[in-house]
């Protein structure tokens, strides 16, 4: 019996039964695990997450998008916003003892592509000489502002101006107010009249302001100041936008006036989908508007940041590429890589655009409202600016020529020169707008010299300061510069020169001129939400983090290259 029972467990039927039982157990286990998992996941999906109006999950319609707060580094990272410094006459005497200059910070890029420069800016109260220069520079605007329109002449008493030079006038007015040369009533009166006039200007073909306007009448004119239209300049508009943002952020009571100016403009053609900026001109034969890419390395990025400060997305214009470098006195000087023979636009390397970026924007990205002055979130701009400074100092040390090069006006023909560090394949090339080489017009540009002095606290800029700080006519303003070949002063007075000089002096007192926006929403973003005007004119929404211009870096030059 026992033997029989053992034999039965090894039978075929027993094996089948065992297999079937094991399969059933396995199937039951799989079912139970699957059911359990399904219940877990389904339970998560079915969980109701409340979408808060205006929150991250709220797909806000365009009608309401204007109320979104602008995303900045302070709002997202919880960092403290920079604050607007007090006017110079309101500063405590120990004000500059407390500011952080980052003197213990090593120069170079950070992990987030910010850059710490090798040099620090000058900071402190203005001394008597500097105040005299500031008052004289402001005197230019007192002399040459037209009562009828509030516009200031670009050059002396020649009654025409551009948006670039009008921005210089605004810079002068802001500096004069902050340096306590003028008081608020006069400042408000000037800015209000100016912006009201600009709001009423006849635009170029109902798009954007014409390149040039007559300052007495406010009529749009051509380059010879005759009634007509030329086109618009994206670079000029970009600089103007920088200063409108500065005014709006510093003086909220002028915000609505500022917004109302921009809300008359049509931005549909000035920036394309790739983020490239376009200017326009009139075709001579057909009379049609021609849109052409505008801006080269230096100016292009500065103007692009002006647009970005108002929510536009000039991604491509803000990039350095395509760029090349030319080795001059051991410095790899960056210049625009677009071939002038193909693009018919010169690649001038001058100091001015780097200075304006440094003085006005602190070499920071538009969304950065919290980093200290010594840390530049638009890192490569600061690093390139260091090279622009260094090559000029090196030239002075190797040749003895004081060098602070920029574009500047000259008296008589050709009226204007690009006094460049590099252009057309040549270093220290001084050329006219039509391309003639005019070395006799090479000069130490006053605005460049004092700009370098403000941003680079070095022995060399002390020399520049001595050359320029008394270069004025007390009855008119600061001279344009000092001829390099000993022909004396560049005896011409311009809004741009005097405006940048005032900006440089203001930077010494207050640091980066652009201050954070302190309000919540802006009319610029909320207006016309119930119409299609915003879409037609390409008005942007408040920029969010994904809209920020990227912080990039390029290879850094750490040692001299010979």
């Amino acid at each position: 019996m026992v033997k029989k029972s053992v034999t039965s467990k090894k039978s075929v039927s027993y094996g089948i039964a065992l297999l079937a039982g094991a399969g059933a157990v396995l199937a039951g286990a799989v079912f139970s695990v699957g059911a359990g998992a399904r219940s877990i996941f389904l339970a998560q999906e079915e969980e109701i997450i409340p979408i808060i109006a205006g929150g991250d999950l709220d797909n806000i319609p365009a009608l309401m998008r204007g109320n979104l707060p602008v995303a900045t580094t302070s709002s997202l990272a919880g960092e403290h916003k920079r604050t607007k410094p007090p006017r110079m006459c309101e500063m405590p005497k120990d004000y500059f003892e407390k500011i952080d200059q980052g003197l213990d910070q090593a120069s170079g890029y950070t992990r987030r592509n910010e850059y710490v420069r090798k040099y620090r800016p000058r900071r402190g109260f203005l001394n008597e000489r500097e105040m005299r220069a500031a008052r004289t520079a402001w005197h230019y605007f007192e002399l040459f502002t037209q009562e009828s329109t509030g516009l200031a002449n670009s050059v002396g008493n020649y009654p025409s101006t551009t948006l670039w030079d009008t921005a210089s006038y605004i810079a002068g007015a802001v500096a004069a107010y902050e340096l306590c040369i003028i008081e608020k009533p006069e400042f408000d009166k000037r800015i209000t009249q100016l912006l009201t006039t600009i709001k009423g200007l006849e635009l170029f073909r109902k798009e954007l302001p014409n390149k040039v306007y007559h300052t007495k009448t406010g009529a749009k004119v051509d380059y010879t100041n005759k009634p007509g239209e030329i086109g618009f300049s994206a670079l000029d508009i970009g600089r103007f936008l920088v200063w409108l943002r500065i005014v709006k952020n510093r003086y909220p009571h002028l915000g609505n006036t500022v917004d109302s100016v921009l809300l008359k403009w049509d931005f549909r053609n000035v920036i394309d989908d790739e983020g490239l900026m376009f200017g326009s001109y009139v075709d001579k034969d057909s009379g049609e508007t021609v849109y052409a890419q505008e801006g080269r390395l230096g100016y292009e990025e500065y103007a692009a940041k002006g647009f970005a400060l108002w929510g536009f997305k000039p991604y491509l214009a803000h990039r350095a590429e395509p760029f090349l470098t030319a080795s001059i006195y051991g410095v790899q000087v960056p210049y625009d890589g677009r071939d002038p023979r193909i693009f018919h636009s010169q690649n001038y390397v001058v100091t001015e655009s780097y200075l304006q970026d440094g003085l006005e924007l602190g070499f920071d990205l538009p969304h950065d409202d919290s980093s200290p002055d010594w840390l530049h979130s638009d890192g490569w701009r600061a690093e390139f600016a260091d090279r622009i400074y260094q090559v000029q100092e090196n030239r002075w040390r190797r040749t003895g020529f004081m060098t602070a090069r920029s574009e500047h006006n000259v008296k008589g023909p050709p009226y204007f020169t690009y006094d460049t560090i590099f252009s057309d394949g040549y270093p220290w090339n001084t050329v006219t707008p039509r391309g003639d080489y005019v070395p006799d017009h090479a000069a130490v540009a006053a605005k460049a010299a004092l700009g370098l002095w403000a941003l680079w606290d070095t022995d060399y800029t002390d020399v520049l300061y001595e050359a320029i700080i008394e270069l004025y006519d007390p009855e008119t303003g600061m001279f344009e510069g000092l001829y390099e070949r000993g022909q004396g002063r560049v005896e011409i007075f311009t809004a741009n020169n005097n405006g940048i000089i005032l900006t440089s002096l203001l930077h010494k007192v207050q640091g980066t001129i652009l201050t954070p926006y302190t309000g919540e929403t802006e009319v610029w973003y909320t207006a016309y939400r119930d119409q299609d005007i915003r879409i037609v004119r390409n008005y942007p929404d408040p920029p969010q983090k994904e809209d920020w211009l990227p912080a990039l870096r390029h290879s850094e030059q750490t040692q001299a290259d010979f």
Partner: protein
Amino acid sequence: MLTFQNTALAGLLIGVSVTAAGSQVQIQNVENFASENAILDTSILFAIGAREARQELRGAFGWPTFQEGLVDGVYFRFDPDGYARFSPNPRLDTDVFEVVCRPRTYSCMGRKGTLSYMLNSRGELQIRLENAAEGDRFFVVEGISELEVPARILQPLDDRMETLLSSSDELIIRRGQDEVDRVSLVGFGAVSAYLRWISARQDYTVLPRGWPIPNGANGATDANLTQAANWQSPMPQPQTPIQTVDTGVDAEMAEVKGELNVLRELLLERHSQNSVSTQPVASPVQSPSQEALRIVELERNAAELQAELERLRSAAQPPNQEALGHKTEMFPAAPSVVASATPAATQPEQASYPQAGTGPKAEAGTLAARLEYLMTEIGLDAKTALMIIEMGSEAEMDETETITPTTVAETYQNQLMNEILSELHKSVGPKPEQPTVEQTQLEPVSIAPTTLPPQDYVLLSDYFRSVFPQAQTSQ
């Protein structure tokens, strides 16, 4: 430093660019920039290959366009206000001739280093050398060879002197054995042409022979752009005095200038005649004219013969005037040939003088009228006016001689005519196989030879064979 007639004007021009210090000066300079300063249309090309380009302006004012190109071995660029640079280097950076114009005028000056020059009121170039002094000697250099030029290069340049300077590389000033100055003349010719072109309101006719003038038809059209009514360019319009000047006054000015040119040419002609008057033989100019005269006579004979031939052929039939006229056009008409042989310079003279009558009385009246015209309108003194009238009479006589065959030639012609006519009369007969005159003349000229019988060819060939050997032997 030498002073010249136009020193004041040149000084004024220099004063435009070299000014005293002070804000007032700056203001003045800026004010000088105005659309009224535009005297040139940069879309009218100065030479083949030039182009108009846009300026890259960052400031609030300036010229929106300019023109650049390469001509006569130098690169150039100029603005609407006439400001120009000429250089053998495309950067226009070395060896530069600069041209500056007095604002709102066509008075311009070329300058390079110590050399400056401009057009005087007579359209002649007048150069000025800052370092030149009395007694200096001047040399032009081409390659390694030097040629001394007279000090009259400091006076208005004649064509030969201008050509010499244009074709030279450098101008050297020597004081004794010392070289005082050396000025490059590269671009001198191009700048001279440019100055004349400006002065003539961008008229191509004043440019030198052989100048690479852009397409003639377009150029003529473009030249009209300087007229206010036709101006279409969006660039600053030249505020040319010519646009506001009364056309009547303009015509008078042109007339006076034409008179002056005629007088100048007459004086030059007389000067050249004086220089060769001691030679016993006729002047070299006369010899070709005699040959031309012979050719003219022969051609006229041929034309007359052809007319006679046609007359004979159509003797039996009603003449077809239209066809006859068409046929005779195959030969040059005698008057036009004669006119073309007439010196062109004498033509304006005839037109500009008061019209002469006929007969001795009328001739005396004409002389008086001419004399009065020269003295009152041109402002010449009586002696000079009389001299010019005498020269004019001589020129007219020469002209008349050119037009009218001499007696000898007439005799020869008659003789020749008789011979040829007799030969023709022998050859031309009523041959039935020949086409009629009407048939021949109704055919287009271009295809007539294919329809004519070979006898006609033989006839003309024989004619020329018969004429030319005689003509050659008669000389």
